């Protein structure tokens, strides 16, 4: 994919809240498809979304969303992107059709077309039957769908979803994730999902951006990242393991021990697995069980951010 194909591009973005650095030289290039935005609390995800929506002007760096400058064209950006906030958002006393059409109109759609489009979008998200009900009577899952509908009503080219499955039961969660997947794969809309639920990202996204302490810790295609970043091995040993573990850590591996005495070794891409055996031989440790484990996004996140 060339630079021209990128819908979201950021170069060396820096932003500070007073003395606190929120973003420190963030470079991003996101093309079509669904992308997950991950990071621990305080990593800079919200600040990044604020900058992408044009609410904050970065102290340094430049960027564009759909070719619009994030410093100058905030209104054009907001017209072309849809945003689904995290918490419950509604206007009491309204029904879903009026609500959705209202926000379509505020996006710049003609009134009649906004109303027509509201019906279509509500059917799409599965609220067709209850579109004339008062919003206060909606369940958590319905409110989530409603937020998705208002984000889609003006047919955005990019969709920002902030914790789209929060407060949902398993059934509702699956349905929302199906919708997100459908939007990103079949509707030609780029989706940027910010979520703490790694399995949601893994289910819906082909790309991932991991932020940590205001910097991009990893970004790229999810499958490739899992391969490139590290290899994960699971093993059981016999003997005194302290020296063995120290030896592995000195080589740059991260080691986790589970309650059932299974060791998980995250090995950097530049190391060969023979190093594990070499270290074990040096420390007189017997390896009784050894398997290359399938890496999950959770493993990637833990390895990149350095948390369990």
């Amino acid at each position, binding site marked *: 994919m060339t630079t021209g194909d990128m819908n979201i591009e950021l170069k060396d973005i820096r932003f500070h809240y007073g003395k606190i650095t929120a973003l420190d030289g963030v470079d991003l290039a996101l093309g079509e498809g669904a992308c997950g935005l991950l990071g621990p609390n305080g990593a800079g995800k919200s600040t990044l*979304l*604020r900058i992408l929506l044009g609410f904050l002007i970065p102290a340094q760096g430049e960027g564009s969303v759909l070719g619009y400058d994030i410093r100058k064209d905030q209104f054009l950006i*907001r017209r072309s992107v849809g*945003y689904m*906030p995290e918490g419950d*958002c509604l206007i*009491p006393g309204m029904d879903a059709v009026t609500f959705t059409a209202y926000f379509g109109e505020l996006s710049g759609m003609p009134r009649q077309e906004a109303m027509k489009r509201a019906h279509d979008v509500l059917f799409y998200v599965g609220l067709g039957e209850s579109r004339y009900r008062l919003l206060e009577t909606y369940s958590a899952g319905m409110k989530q769908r409603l937020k998705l509908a208002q984000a889609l009503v003006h047919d955005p080219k990019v969709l920002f979803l902030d914790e789209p499955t929060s407060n949902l039961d398993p059934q509702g969660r699956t349905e929302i994730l199906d919708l997100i997947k459908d939007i990103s794969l079949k509707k030609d809309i780029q989706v940027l999902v910010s979520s703490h639920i790694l399995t949601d990202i893994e289910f819906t996204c082909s790309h991932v951006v991991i932020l940590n302490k205001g910097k991009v810790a990893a970004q790229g295609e999810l499958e490739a990242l899992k391969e490139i970043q590290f290899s994960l091995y699971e093993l059981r040993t016999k003997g005194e393991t302290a020296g063995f573990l120290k030896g592995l850590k000195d080589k740059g591996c991260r080691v986790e021990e589970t309650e059932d005495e299974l060791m998980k070794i995250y090995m950097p891409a530049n190391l060969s697995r023979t190093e594990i055996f070499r270290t074990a031989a040096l420390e007189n440790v017997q390896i009784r069980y050894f398997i290359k484990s399938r890496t999950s996004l959770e493993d990637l996140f833990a390895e990149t951010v350095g948390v369990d």
Partner: protein
Amino acid sequence: MPIAERGYAHWDGAFVERRFPWWPITRLGIRLAFKRKFFKPLFAISLAPAVFFLAGIYMSERIEDFQFMFRGRNGNRLLGVDPAFFKTYFTFDTVLFLMVMLMVLAGAGLISDDLKFNSLQLYFSRPLRKRDYWLGKMATVSFFLLIVTLVPGLLFILFKIIFSGSFKFLTTYPWIPLSVVGYSLLVTLFFAFYTLLISSLSKNRRYVSILLFLVYVFSDVFFGIFYGIFHEPAFCLLSIKCDLQQVGAFIFRVRPQYDVPWIYSVLVLTAICSVSGFVLKRKIRGVEVIQ
């Protein structure tokens, strides 16, 4: 319903550049106000004083027909349509009270509901300026207040001309239309700022409603107490109602009720509007839409 059965077609229309981007907000505010319980009867009642005064204009032109209703020559004085007549309507306690009640029902939730239900994030993720949001909300309150002030004021002038069959009233008081427009705008602007200020202070619509009512009433009660104790007319500045009446008296060129320069009342009202602007600027922040 499985995904495969759901349709999603891209919208091929064109966005429009609205001259007044705040208008959809105003339209919605008006619509939601009429959906509120008791609002329609209150709105009808708030028009009653205007009807009463219109009847007064008709009677003033047919004074002989209604002479039996009055003793002596009082009828002429009572029904004289002059600047004092307009000042009386515009600063009438009942009219001001009904305006406050309209604000309680139609304006209390304008911002507090948006704060409570997090809808600010939805507004500001659209191509909408903070200014447009304010204007949309203010215009909602203004719509109702102007119906109670500007519309009757202009109708009074029109009906006076129609009933009298001459333009003598306008030639005698050529500044009256300007005064009507000026005072209507002033009182509307002030009450719009007042409503939005209080509406932005709490996420609870009920508290806002109570506060809207109590601040207005108690400002007058405090004035009454202090005036009763110290007999100092300057305490009228404490009362929102008196401030509006003092300014109204100046605009309609009538002797004010209290011997306090009208400009002080203007300053008090301006100060409240300024505080409102400051608080709104702090409370309504697009940057906080993403929590």
